[in-house]
């Protein structure tokens, strides 16, 4: 637990924090609203005080009631992992600004989060399915994607569980709308 980091984060990001900062083990967690993502991450990335240059992970989370996007950052200035949770995305239309302008490599991780959760990253130039087939319609890591018990245990002997829940969301303004015919 890096108390110094906690003080600095609270001082610099005070107005962006959506809930109190938490620390446990070697992790420091801040929670922010979706609209604050570009500002906060730009500050964390660019500011020499923080210097979070390494994006260790980008992950989508479905809490069952809302969606989250979780970034893990690493900086030489602190022994902690910094976890930035973007909370309060609606499950019906989760949208969050893309951070590909900071880390171009986040593009595929955002694509994966879109693929698995349907979270739309606004500003990602190539937001399409990556692991699932392009004509797949549901989002498998959402909690309402019910993975039948047998299917988890015995491959092949289980239940077919392909496309279950909702139709895919439109991936933002970047979508090229072309009619099929």
């Amino acid at each position, binding site marked *: 637990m890096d108390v110094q980091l906690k003080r600095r984060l609270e001082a610099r990001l005070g107005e962006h924090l959506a809930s109190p900062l938490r620390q446990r083990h070697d992790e420091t967690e801040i929670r922010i609203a979706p609209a604050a993502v570009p500002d906060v991450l730009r500050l964390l990335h660019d500011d020499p005080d923080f210097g979070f240059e390494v994006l260790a*992970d980008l*992950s989508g*989370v479905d809490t069952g009631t809302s969606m989250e996007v979780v970034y893990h950052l*690493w900086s030489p200035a602190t022994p902690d992992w910094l976890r930035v949770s973007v909370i309060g995305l609606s499950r019906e239309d989760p949208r969050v600004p893309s951070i590909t302008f900071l*880390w171009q*490599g986040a593009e595929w991780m955002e694509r994966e989060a879109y693929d698995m959760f349907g979270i739309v990253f606004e500003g990602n130039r190539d*937001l399409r399915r990556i692991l699932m087939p392009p*004509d797949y319609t549901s989002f498998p890591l959402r909690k309402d994607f019910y993975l039948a018990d047998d299917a988890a245990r015995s491959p092949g002997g289980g239940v077919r569980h392909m496309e279950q829940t909702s139709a895919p969301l439109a991936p933002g303004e970047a979508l*090229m709308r*072309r009619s099929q015919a």
Partner: protein
Amino acid sequence: MTSHRFTSADDPRVTLDEQLGTFEPIPPYPPRTEREAEFYSVGDGEMLVNVGPHHPSTHGVLRVVMKLDGERVVDLDPVLGYLHRGVEKLCENADLHHTIAYLDPLEYVSSLFCEWPAVMAYEKLLGIRVPRRAEYIRVLTGELNRISSHLLAMGFHALDLGGLTPILYSFIERDEIVEMLASITGQRMLFNYFRIGGVNGDLNHEFLSRLGDWMSHALTEVQANQGLLNENELFVRRNRGLGTIDSKTALRMCWTGPNLRATGVPFDLRRAHPYSVYPELDFDIPTRSEGDCLARYLLRIDEIKQSLRIIDQCLHEMPDGPVMAQVPRLMRPRPGRTFAAVEAPRGEYGVFVISDGTDQPFRFRIHDPSFLHLQSFPLLVPGNLLADWMAINASLDPIMGGVDK
């Protein structure tokens, strides 16, 4: 261009021909993003070629659609998911112990590094202190696994450039390592050895005698076999200056591991975010400044030497004691979130776990480094030849099992 030799509507061969159609890599649906639309509009004199999913040098089932102008690559679009098994979903529906077994086949040439971050994350969640001997055993087996993985990577690098022999020399050494790991873990590839709170079984005599034999000649053998390639003009000329990336871009592309260190950034989680007993061990972080395929290749040799140093120290400093902590039978970590990452042979292998207080993880996120290295193809490859893609791909050393999860 399809030619139908059969005209009878009843002939099954005709339907087969029609189903296959022309073998165009252009997808049969309208493009969904600007990038896709731009890529799949083929210009004058360009052609699209499917490299993979069944191609000798795609390291698994990677499919890359290449836009070629002659032999020169104009653009390329990696298509993933041919090996997608939904491991994250499976882990979210499995017991904490079960998840470890699911993780093994991800990076199947370095399985221990897939288990490691998961058990680290669970130990953090459960507040378990791992015995020191278990930590030493983890480091020892992990570094052995790193060597075997690097050897394989270097061998396949040569194989993708047409050299038949280095891969087999690599396999000789790798087989020694794999056999000795099998003697303590029970399996040759999918070890399933790390447990929450320690490791599954102590070192045994067979392992130690094999390791001793191997350590006595490992470095000389590896170096002698590298003489086949390191000075070979054909190999060096094909790799030098190819797929060059600078450190800034590499960081922006979220690169980690040897590929990032080959650009000059000494980012190694064993030092950058120390875990296990690495702070007590003495080793260097080799870096190179060129950032090209040759640097990535040579850096792996340096890493093998450092790993041998670590193994040597582990053997000398290993304390006695138990190899498993006292852990409850039924593990219900308290609700919370945790992130753990280790320095795998390909970079930072991370696991992000959310626990909701049950015996199953609520969210289990696997962060695979190869996934991010593959992403950089459109930066590295265009402008080079088709054959250069094989060299770049081999030097990035992706494992598709981990990429596709």
